[in-house]
Structures are given as C-alpha cells and as structure tokens.
C-alpha cells in the first residue's frame, strides 16, 4: 500500500530515488538542495539504498561522474541549485549531447551577486539551452512523482536524454508536506530497468564525445534537436501512463479556471498554487481571469501553449528571472515568440517577481493581475515591470 507521510520535500526526493533503485549518486551539497543529497547519503550509509554514493569536490565533478556512470548504463541521480548548476554548465551540454539519461533535481535558486541562497529561476534560465528535458513542479507530491517519471522518460529508447526536475528552493525544497509514497511493486511496474543501448563495454568498444570536424557537427546538432523535440510525445505518454497507474495527471501546459477567460495569468513552479488562490478570489469577485501553468519547459510545448491561450485577449506572464539586457523575462520572450505568427494575437505583458526569494502572496497575484490588465490597456513602451520593487 502507498503510505501518506508528512515529510520534507527534499527527503521525499531521496525516497523517490530509492524506489527507483538508483545505482549511482554523485553530488555536492549546496543550499537549498543540501537536504536531498544528505538524505541520499544517509540512505546509502544505512543500507536502505544499494547505490554507489560518490562525494565529489565540486558540481563540475558531480556532473562529470554522473555522465561517466550513465555511460556504463547505471541509473544515475544527482541534485543541485543556483551556483552549483552554473558550475556544472559545460558538462550539462556533454550529458545531453552524448544522450546520457542522468536525472537531476534542481532546487531553483537566485544567482550571485549579491549573494542569495533563496529561490528564483535565474539558475534554470542560464541552463535553458543545455539540451536537457526540463519539468517544473508545484508541490512535494509533484516532485516525488516527476522524479519517477524523469527516469522513465530519460531512459526510454526513443529519448535517451538527461532530465531536470525543477522545484523552487525553500518554497518547495524545505516544506514539510503530506506526500503519498507509492509502493515498490507498483513503481517497479511503472519504471522498467535501465537498459542503455550503447554502454561503455570493453567487449564491445564504443567512443563517446568524439571529435567532430565542421563536416559533421551540424548533422550531430540537428539529430540532437530533432530528438529533444520528439521527446515531448514520450513525456506526454509517460504522464498518461502515470495517471492510469497512480491517478495523478500531468500535462505540458495546465490550465486552471480558464473557461471563457479574457485575461490569463501565466506562471511556472510553486507560485502557481498561490496564483490559483488569487484566481479563485478574482473569479468569486466576477472577473473573467484564468491561470495557465507551464509544466514542461524543455522541449517547449508550442502547440499546447497556443491551444491553451487561443481565446485570451491578454496574457500576463509572471517570470521569476530577468534576462539582463533583454526585452522581457525569459518565459515571456518565449510566449511572445510562440504567439507572434498567430492570426489573432493576445496582448502579452510581463511582470517579473519573486526574485531572490521575495514572497508574492495571494493578494500580490491579485495586484499583478490588476497591474497587468492596466499595462495591456494603456500600452507601454516598457517591456516588463518588476513587481514590488521599491522606487
């Protein structure tokens, strides 16, 4: 029987990785992700998880060790956050380009300077184009579920890609929530053993990450892009299988009370639940407002997003990161570009907030909707506004 327990979300990630029978964990602790790898170290040390735990000297080494482990066909897991993700940066590309299905939870954190250990999406956005499948979660159960899904998606023979599962630092990583820990037999049925098709094997030698002169590099990148884009169907298929088995449904773009809504608020990550409460209040007050949440960040769900917003007049995109020197927040830029070619385009305004762990409350999201509507009505030479910043 699945058991429902009150548990810190970081620890639930360790439980999910244990249920998935990971073979190798190579990790370096960094706030706000530390409890994840601490718990995994404890599980291995206590004999509850039969895995090799490699304590490394940096995140660069953590990801390097992970891709080595994945290359021999081991089920491989790690976790990081903020600066740690940035230190891994070059190796992230290597993992995805060599098609090694590492699974990593990222407890999203702001980047220095000034030093902030608190949450926002600056770290993710800097790793946006690294070729990983990237999934956003809104609560502890979603993190637990999507860690299991991440292994199944990444190791699928039609995919073979690394997967990041994003959870907001502190707002999710450090929360104690009721979490349904699924039973082992069911997880085993859902998640087949990892069977990497071309592992490093002295009896059947292969070369990975070889030198590619100009005559072949473009072909390698085209193959990578086609593969990542095609992985969306497998992601959706996996979530449907998960729904059939466990009763919780995930979709690339999820809508909340969007029926007949002229105004749509758009969020990604744990603030979506706060935003839902704000939508409830606004709907109760008679306003035609709905919420659209992006769950799949890469590959970007272009078709699904167009469908989800096709009747809206105004979209207010809430970003948790700046694209410094750019036109808007990273999510908003992608939304605008997704809709640019549409015959009927909604107005897309951008409010950036929740930077470096700044709280945005239910009342805050109500205010963001009011502000967004006003920005759309009056038109503005300003591409975005930073919510709550003191002038």
């Amino acid at each position, binding site marked *: 029987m699945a058991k429902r327990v009150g548990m810190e979300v970081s620890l639930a990630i360790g439980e999910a990785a244990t249920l998935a029978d990971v073979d190798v964990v190579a990790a370096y602790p960094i706030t706000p992700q530390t409890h994840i790898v601490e718990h995994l170290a404890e599980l291995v040390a206590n004999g509850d998880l039969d895995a090799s735990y490699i304590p490394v000297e940096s995140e660069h080494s953590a990801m390097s060790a992970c891709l080595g482990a994945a290359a021999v066909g081991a089920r491989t897991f790690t976790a990081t956050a903020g600066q740690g993700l940035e230190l891994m940066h070059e190796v992230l590309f290597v993992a995805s380009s060599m098609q090694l299905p590492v699974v990593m939870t990222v407890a999203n954190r702001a980047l220095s300077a000034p030093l902030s250990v608190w949450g926002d999406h600056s770290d993710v956005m800097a790793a946006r184009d690294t070729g990983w499948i990237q999934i956003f979660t809104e609560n502890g159960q979603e993190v637990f579920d999507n860690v299991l899904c991440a292994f199944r998606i990444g190791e699928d023979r039609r995919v073979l890609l690394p997967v990041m599962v994003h959870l907001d630092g502190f707002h999710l990583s450090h929360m104690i929530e009721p979490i349904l820990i699924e039973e082992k037999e069911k997880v085993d049925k859902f998640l087949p053993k990892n069977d990497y098709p*071309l592992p490093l094997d002295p009896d059947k030698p292969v070369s*990975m990450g070889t030198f590619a002169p100009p005559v072949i590099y473009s072909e390698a990148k085209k193959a990578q892009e086609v593969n990542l884009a095609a992985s969306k169907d497998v992601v959706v298929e996996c979530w449907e299988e998960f729904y059939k088995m466990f009763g919780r449904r995930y979709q690339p773009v999820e809508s909340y009370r969007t029926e007949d809504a002229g105004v749509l608020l758009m969020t990604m990550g744990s603030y979506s639940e706060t935003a839902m409460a704000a939508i409830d209040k606004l709907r109760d007050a008679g306003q035609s407002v709905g919420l659209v949440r992006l769950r799949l960040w890469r590959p970007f769900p272009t078709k699904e997003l167009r469908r989800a917003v096709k009747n809206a007049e105004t979209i207010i995109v809430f970003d948790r990161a700046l694209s410094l020197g750019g036109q808007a927040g990273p999510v908003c830029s992608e939304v605008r570009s997704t809709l640019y070619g549409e015959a009927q385009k909604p107005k897309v305004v951008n409010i950036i907030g929740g930077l470096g762990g700044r709280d945005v409350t239910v009342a805050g999201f109500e205010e963001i909707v009011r502000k967004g509507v006003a920005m759309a009505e009056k038109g503005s030479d300003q591409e975005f506004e930073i919510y709550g910043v003191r002038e």
Partner: protein
Amino acid sequence: MAAKKETDVTWKDLEIGSIVVEPGSAEQYATGGWRSQRPVYDNSKCNKCGLCFIYCPEGCIRPQEDGYYKPDLFYCKGCGICAEECPKDVITMVEEEE
C-alpha cells in the same frame, strides 16, 4: 556509417549521441591536412638514433627495414618537434607550398 563518405553522412545516419561504434576509426582521419610544413630527411647524416620516432607526438614516424626513419604524411601535422630534437640535423622543415 563507415560505408558512406563523410560528406554524404546525414543527421539520420548518426548513432545515438553521435557515439562512434567502430573501434579505431580515428585512423581514417587525415590530420596531415592541418600541416603547413613537412619534415624532409637527409639520411646521409642520420645515425639511426630514433629520437625523432620517440618524440613525435602524433606517433607517425616509423622505423623502416633499412633502420632509417620515415614520417607518415597522412598523419604528420608538421609540428617540427622531430627537426628540433634531431641531434644530427637530418630533418629540415619545408613549406608545403614549395
């Protein structure tokens, strides 16, 4: 993939992750194309010490049956280390266009 000329290989021909499944395929790569100078031996000065063979970073200088040494220009990148290390000045680096 090995059967095709490299200019005919499409993205669909590549293995997952561009993994190379044929062992030792680097042998087919003509690193000699990088060369701007080539080593020319004057064996009349050579004492067959083999230092050029030992120092060559490409591993492309091989002893011949007569005991003298010869670079394989398919791989020689023209770095000139052999000419620098040769104690008898046997080797001269000559511009490729000459």
